[in-house]
C-alpha cells in the first residue's frame, strides 16, 4: 500500500470521521495539547536554566533535574497521544505537511538531547561537581530552550503551510 492510499484509508476510517464530525473533540484535544506544552516547556526552561547556571544555583543540580524530568516525560506522552488524535482527524493535511515532519524531527532531537544531558544525573552515576564543569553542558542547555521554541513555532505553522 502506498503512503497516499494509506492516508486515504485512514481519512475514511470511522475514528477519523468521528474526530472531524464531533465538534468538541478537536478544540478539547488541542487545549490539552497546549497544557502539556506548558508543562514540558516550563520544566525545560527551569531545569535547562539551572544546567546553564543562571537559575536556582544554590540548589543542587541533580535535585532540580530530577524534580522536573518526570514531568517532561509524562507531558511528552500526553503530547504524543493528543498529537496522534489530531493527526488521525486530518491525516491528509498533517502527514503531507513539511512543517509537521520538521517538527517531529525537532521533537525527537530535543528530547534525545534533554535525556542524554540529564541521564548521568538521573542515574546517580555522575559526580555533580565534575558534571557541572563539563564545558558542553551550558551551551547544550541553551540550545534545548531554543529548540523547544522552534518546536512551538512549527506546531502553529502546520496550520498555515502545505
Amino acid at each position, binding site marked *: 500500500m502506498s503512503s497516499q492510499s494509506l492516508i486515504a484509508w485512514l481519512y475514511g476510517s470511522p475514528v477519523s470521521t468521528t474526530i472531524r464530525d464531533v*465538534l468538541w473533540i*478537536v*478544540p*478539547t484535544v*488541542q*487545549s490539552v495539547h*497546549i*497544557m502539556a*506544552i*506548558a*508543562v514540558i*516547556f*516550563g*520544566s525545560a*526552561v*527551569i531545569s535547562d536554566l*539551572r544546567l546553564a547556571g543562571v*537559575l*536556582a544555583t*544554590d*540548589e543542587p543540580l541533580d*535535585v*532540580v533535574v530530577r*524534580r*522536573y524530568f518526570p514531568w517532561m516525560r509524562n507531558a511528552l506522552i500526553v503530547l504524543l497521544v493528543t498529537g496522534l488524535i489530531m493527526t488521525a482527524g486530518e491525516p491528509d493535511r498533517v502527514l503531507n505537511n513539511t512543517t509537521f515532519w520538521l517538527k517531529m524531527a525537532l521533537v525527537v532531537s530535543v528530547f534525545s538531547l534533554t535525556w542524554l544531558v540529564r541521564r548521568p544525573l538521573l542515574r546517580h552515576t555522575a559526580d555533580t561537581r565534575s558534571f557541572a564543569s563539563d564545558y558542553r553542558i551550558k551551551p547544550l542547555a541553551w540550545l534545548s530552550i531554543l529548540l523547544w*521554541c522552534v518546536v*512551538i*513555532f512549527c*506546531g*502553529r*505553522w502546520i*496550520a*498555515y503551510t502545505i
Partner: protein
Amino acid sequence: MELQSTLQAIQDTRVATMIRESGLAFPTLESLHVLGIALVFGTIAIVDLRLLGYASHRRSAHRLIKELLPFTWIAFAVCVATGLLMFISNAITYAENSFFWWKMGALLLAGLNMGVFHLGVYRRIDEWDVSLPPPSGARAAGVGSLALWTLVIFLGRWIGFS
C-alpha cells in the same frame, strides 16, 4: 453603534490592516502567544503545586515565588501584547465572539484570585514558608489558580472554533 464604529476604526488602523493582510504576521503572533502561554502556565503551575503542598525544586515557598514571578510577568506581557495585536486585526469579529469575553472574564477571576492571595495569606508567608502542607488559604489559592488558568487556555482555543 458607537462601539461598532470604534471597533471599525481600530481595525482600519495601519497596524491592524498590516496584520490582517500579511501572511506572516498572524501565525507569528499566534506562535509567540503560545510560547508566552507555555511559560505563564508552566511557571504558575510550579508555584500552584507548591501552594498545594507538592515539594518544588526548593523548600522555601517565598523564594520560589520570587524566583519564578519575573518569568511569569514577562511571558504574560508577551501574551497581552500579541493578544492585543491579534484582537485589533479583527476587532469586530472578536468582540462578537462570546468565548473571547468568557476568556477575558476567566483572566479577570485569575487576577482576583492572585490579588486575594497576595493581600491575604501571602502577607504571613514567613510563618508557613517551609511548612508542608501549607495553610488552607494557600492551598485554596493554588487550586483556584490552576482551575482558572486551565479555563483560560480552553476558552482561548475555543475562540478559533466559533
